[in-house]
């Protein structure tokens, strides 16, 4: 608390000057309160995405954690797993097809197909038992067919499954759109995911058909 000084003088040197009341003016408007600084939100630069980087998760990596519901997290994980899975399945299918094709010599598969058609028309089951060469062709051809069918079966998507994946991918795209993160790379990434997950059956069908065709030559 301020205490008035004990002054050895009577009054201040300016007592007479200060005995007259001062002229006053209206105070000016106080300065406006400082506006909060607008800081531009820095978004982490998006990594350059290639077609495959989106498959391996590069495109879905977000610069900051976003709030997702449990369903969204599950759906996103499903899409991711499916996309990885689809690539692995297709590569596996390709390798299997090459491997099984190499077991057949030229013309063997055509011979097998002829035996098969004869079998269908004649209704004779053990036609090849008498001739080991025919038997070998029959077994090889059968194994070839079974391998390709297994591939087709493995990569066959059920309708419900395909729809679920489609919905999850679409939701992902919409979320990106709301966050204004959609760019050419993310679109191509999502298209690739869609193609892989929804057309997996067709892709594997193409591979097996191509393998069959080349084996028939």
């Amino acid at each position, binding site marked *: 608390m301020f205490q008035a000084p004990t*002054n*050895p003088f009577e009054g201040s040197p300016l007592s007479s000057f200060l005995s007259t009341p001062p002229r006053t*003016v209206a105070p000016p408007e106080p300065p406006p309160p400082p506006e909060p600084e607008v800081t531009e939100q820095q978004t982490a630069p998006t990594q350059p995405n290639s077609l495959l980087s989106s498959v391996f998760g590069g495109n879905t990596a977000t610069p900051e954690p976003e709030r997702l519901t449990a369903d969204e997290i599950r759906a996103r994980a499903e899409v991711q797993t499916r996309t990885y899975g689809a690539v692995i399945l297709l590569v596996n299918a390709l390798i299997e097809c090459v491997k099984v094709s190499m077991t057949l010599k030229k013309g063997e598969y055509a011979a097998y197909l002829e035996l098969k058609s004869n079998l269908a028309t004649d209704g004779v089951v053990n036609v090849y038992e008498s001739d080991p060469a025919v038997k070998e062709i029959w077994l090889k051809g059968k194994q070839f067919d079974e391998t390709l069918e297994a591939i087709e079966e493995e990569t066959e998507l059920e309708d419900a499954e395909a729809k679920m994946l489609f919905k999850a991918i679409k939701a992902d795209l919409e979320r990106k759109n709301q966050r204004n993160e959609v760019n050419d790379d993310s679109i191509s990434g999502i298209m690739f995911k869609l193609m892989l997950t929804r057309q997996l059956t067709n892709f594997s069908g193409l591979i097996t058909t191509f393998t069959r065709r080349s084996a028939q030559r």
Partner: protein
Amino acid sequence: MNELRDSAAILHVGMKRTGKTTASLQMMVEFVEKQGKPVVVLDLGCHPSFDNFRRITLEELPKIHSLPGKKYFVYRPYESLQVFPEILEFCTMVSKYVRNAVVFFEDFTTYVEGNFHPIVKGLILNSRNSCNDYVFNVHSFSDVGPFILKHCEIYLVRETIDDPNDLPPKIPYTIRPTVKQALALVLKENQRNRNKYAYRIIYKEENRIG
């Protein structure tokens, strides 16, 4: 008859131990009690006489009349290495937003010397329009620049190191004889009283000793 006084810039000159600070405190009391004006001291030296004053910030200056408590404030720059920008900012805030108040510039020459910054010049020139009184405490006439000698309306003269017979030429020619006379009277009185507390007031516009 004009019953209201105009604001003034007051140059308070006196060497050490001549009662400058004591008189300043007494003037502050009168400014607050009689004139109803809040007092702000710009104090770089952290003078203990002002330790009990409320420390005011630049942001609070525009609200000086509405701040609670006694109207004795002290502004002490926080950043000792950034003192000059802070003083200029203080002067800007006072010029812009403070009215009907008194500012004491304690040991003015320690932070303002030579050619004044336009902000300080503007502050002094606008004292009447803003109804602010300014008191500049300095140690001698030779310490201060010609601008302040020219524009202060009142000189409060105490014993200084200045030689009354060889005053600095920067003191305006018209007022020099009066300053010389006031200094001589102060010296004479101090010799008679064997202390250094004598003073004289020079009203510059009237060119007379009060």
